């Protein structure tokens, strides 16, 4: 057999052919364009249409930005400089940026305070948002931040936020001591301790009103994008605990509690935010004890918080419903009572899976804070429509101002939604 083969011509190639480069049409950028832009006549047509649409948009947008005027004191000067080159009059932003950001009544020498509060906000939320990177101890920064931000933005004596913080601290201390016995004892003990501290602290702050005081700024002087940020941050953080309570109430077995929560949630979700703002503006005063009058901004915060908590409650209810029934049964079989099982087993898991939904609600709520301009508060949209567009200097500069406002909102909301998508990928532990 081997003899026969030794004489026959080799059929199998005994050397390896050097690898040839792929055909030019099937590699690199050409291949990519053939599959992604010009695959078939319909795809090519689509690409051409898209390119034309892109050209139409860019042919207006690019000169608007590149020929923009940044240095002018009013719109007539702007038009003189531009000479019809199709540029934008961005001078209005350079001229009025303080108003757009801080409102037109916030004292100019104090602009550093809200700016600092804004920067600290990132430090405060970082341990909350990226809990895997930052150690848990840093959460204390998050806990301190609300009081610090209040002090920075509203000013006044530093003792007021410190006393408020001490009160919460004392309440938490008592709560953590007593909660091992029973949740009710811990909760009411904590509340009592906080109230006692606040009551006693009232004497101290009353005695020293000017201690380390920053110049106080009234709530009605807040405006611009700062007002949107304040409303957004405060209302989202306040609505979280209410939302959790409402969600638990809606899931509970007690028909009366459940009924109250369902009626509240469905009512709030059924009406537009504007009607609730009308309530804050003109109706709420009727329902308060005669003689009490508090800030419009506080009334608006109450109504937006109620609004947001109903939506957050629905998100968390989704999280509660998504937990397997076994978790509830396991908690019961360990002999945990209702508060223990919720606090230790159910809520940590349910909240974790509802974070992306909560973030979406937060983005929506932040966008909805522009609605306060309808009840004549001067947030960024209210400022643009009111003082700035009505002024003789800038009457007629629409696109630059609205574009600027849109850009600010886009940066914040896009950032938050990208975070939410990142978090969703982090939390996705199922197999795909």
């Amino acid at each position, binding site marked *: 057999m081997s003899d026969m083969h030794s004489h026959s011509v080799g059929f199998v190639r005994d050397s390896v052919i050097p690898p040839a480069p792929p055909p030019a049409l099937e590699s690199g950028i050409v291949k990519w364009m053939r599959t*992604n832009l010009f695959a078939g006549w319909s795809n090519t047509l689509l690409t051409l249409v898209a390119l034309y649409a892109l050209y139409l948009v860019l042919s207006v947008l690019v000169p608007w930005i590149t020929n923009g005027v940044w240095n002018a004191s009013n719109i007539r000067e702007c038009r003189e400089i531009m000479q019809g080159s199709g540029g934008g009059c961005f001078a209005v932003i350079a001229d009025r940026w303080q108003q757009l950001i801080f409102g037109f009544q916030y004292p100019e020498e104090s602009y550093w305070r809200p700016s600092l509060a804004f920067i600290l906000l990132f430090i405060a939320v970082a341990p909350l948002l990226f809990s895997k990177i930052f150690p848990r101890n840093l959460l204390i920064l998050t806990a301190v931040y609300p009081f610090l931000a209040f002090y920075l933005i509203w000013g006044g004596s530093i003792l007021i936020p410190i006393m408020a913080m001490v009160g919460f601290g004392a309440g938490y201390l008592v709560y953590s001591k007593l909660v091992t016995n029973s949740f009710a004892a811990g909760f009411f003990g904590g509340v009592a301790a906080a109230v006692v501290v606040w009551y006693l602290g009232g004497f101290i702050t009353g005695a020293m009103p000017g201690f380390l005081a920053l110049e106080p700024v009234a709530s009605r002087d807040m405006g611009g994008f700062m007002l949107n940020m304040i409303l957004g941050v405060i209302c989202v953080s306040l609505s979280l605990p209410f939302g959790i309570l409402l969600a638990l109430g809606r899931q509970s077995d007690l028909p009366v509690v459940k009924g109250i929560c369902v009626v509240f949630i469905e009512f709030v979700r059924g009406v537009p935010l504007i*009607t609730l703002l*009308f309530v804050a503006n*003109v109706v709420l005063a*009727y*329902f308060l004890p005669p003689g009490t009058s508090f800030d419009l901004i506080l009334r608006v915060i109450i109504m937006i918080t109620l609004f947001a908590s109903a939506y957050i409650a629905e998100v968390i209810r989704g999280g509660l419903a998504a937990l397997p029934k076994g978790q509830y049964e396991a908690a019961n079989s360990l002999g945990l009572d209702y508060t223990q099982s919720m606090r230790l087993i159910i809520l940590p898991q349910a909240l974790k899976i509802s974070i992306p939904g909560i973030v979406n609600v937060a983005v929506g709520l932040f966008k909805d804070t*522009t*609605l306060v301009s309808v009840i004549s508060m001067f947030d960024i949209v209210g400022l643009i429509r009111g003082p700035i567009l009505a002024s003789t200097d800038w009457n007629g500069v629409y696109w630059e101002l609205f574009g600027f406002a849109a850009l600010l909102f886009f940066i914040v909301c896009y950032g938050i939604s990208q975070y939410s998508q990142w978090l969703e990928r982090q939390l996705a532990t199922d197999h795909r």
Partner: protein
Amino acid sequence: MSTLTDPQQGSFRLSMLLSDTRYRSYTFQFIALVALIVAMAFLGLNLVRNLAAQGLDISYDFLSSASGYDINQRPIEYDSQSTHLRAAVVGILNTLIVAVLACVTATIIGVFAGVMRLSNNWLVRKIMAVYVEAFRNVPVLIWILIIFSIMTVSLPAPSAFRGETPTSTMFLDTVAFTNRGVYIPAPVMGPGAWIVILTFVASILGIFALRKYAMKTLFDTGRIVPTFWPSVALFFLPTLLVHFILGRPIGLEYPELRGFNFQDGIQIRGSLIALWFALAIYTGAFIAENVRAGIQAISKGQTEAAGALGLRPNRIMSLVILPQALRVIIPPLVSQYLNITKNSSLAIAVGYMDVTGTLGGITLNQTGRAIESVLLLMLFYLVISLSISTIMNIYNNSVKLKER
């Protein structure tokens, strides 16, 4: 949560209200109820005292008094002598008009953008992603104001259409874009117009009958009856035929520049267009995401299985993918419709006279009946949302996956 030991009969002690799980729930509910009643009583008492202090009362009599203001867009007969109630009804109709227009447009935009985001064309995919992100992340109020500015600032005044060499001309001589609104031709019903309309309705019914017949034939005999081109033909031919046989009873009345403004035709105000398109484009971005998620939620195995059965790609789409995707898409779609209806209350920012502008705006300010007006306003939106979500729940239950 029940205890296993048998309870001792007839030995009820007061402490069991807190310690025994059978009674504790009643205690809690009782406390909750009492707290609710106390809170309500507190608010009610304050209300009574505040109203008494200002010499006011709760009364809905103002609804039947003359409103004294004009509404620029009137779907029904209305003038300043009509009642406040009629003004509110006009507002409700205006709300429904803009909501329906925006819902239809948003669905078209959203489905288009959602499908295009899954296109295999890279450029189109990216453009649609930019559209979705840009519009989702900016408040709808800003979009409304931007489009309103375009309508009122950038479009020419009616006077620009006048003269020997006008600076602006009507689009195709039928539609005039002016800063006072868009003027489109109005249909004029001549004698016999109802016959044409009746024919049109009959042909629509005919299309449904044809589809039903085709389905029945398919199931009974396995024979495929063509439906697409017959449907198209049925849609156009009979109506056009009747229209021309009767000597064109339905004509068009073109807008015409007379005096200082356009006359005849239908005027669509800039405020309506701003609200309509801003809501449609904004919500369209959300719907696009819903549509994309719905289509992506159908696992690839479904497409492959249908392909293995020998179905052609368009049949895979219409028979396998879409019916399953719709189950995922429709619930969020309807909640987007509800959002449009609720967001249409932003009309007040551009002066479109919807129910928030009439009842919650001018009527409230003129009569000072804040509580009554806001209450009625909330009731209107509540009725709409609750009735739509009831219908939705029924629908959801009917399409729910029937599992064991």
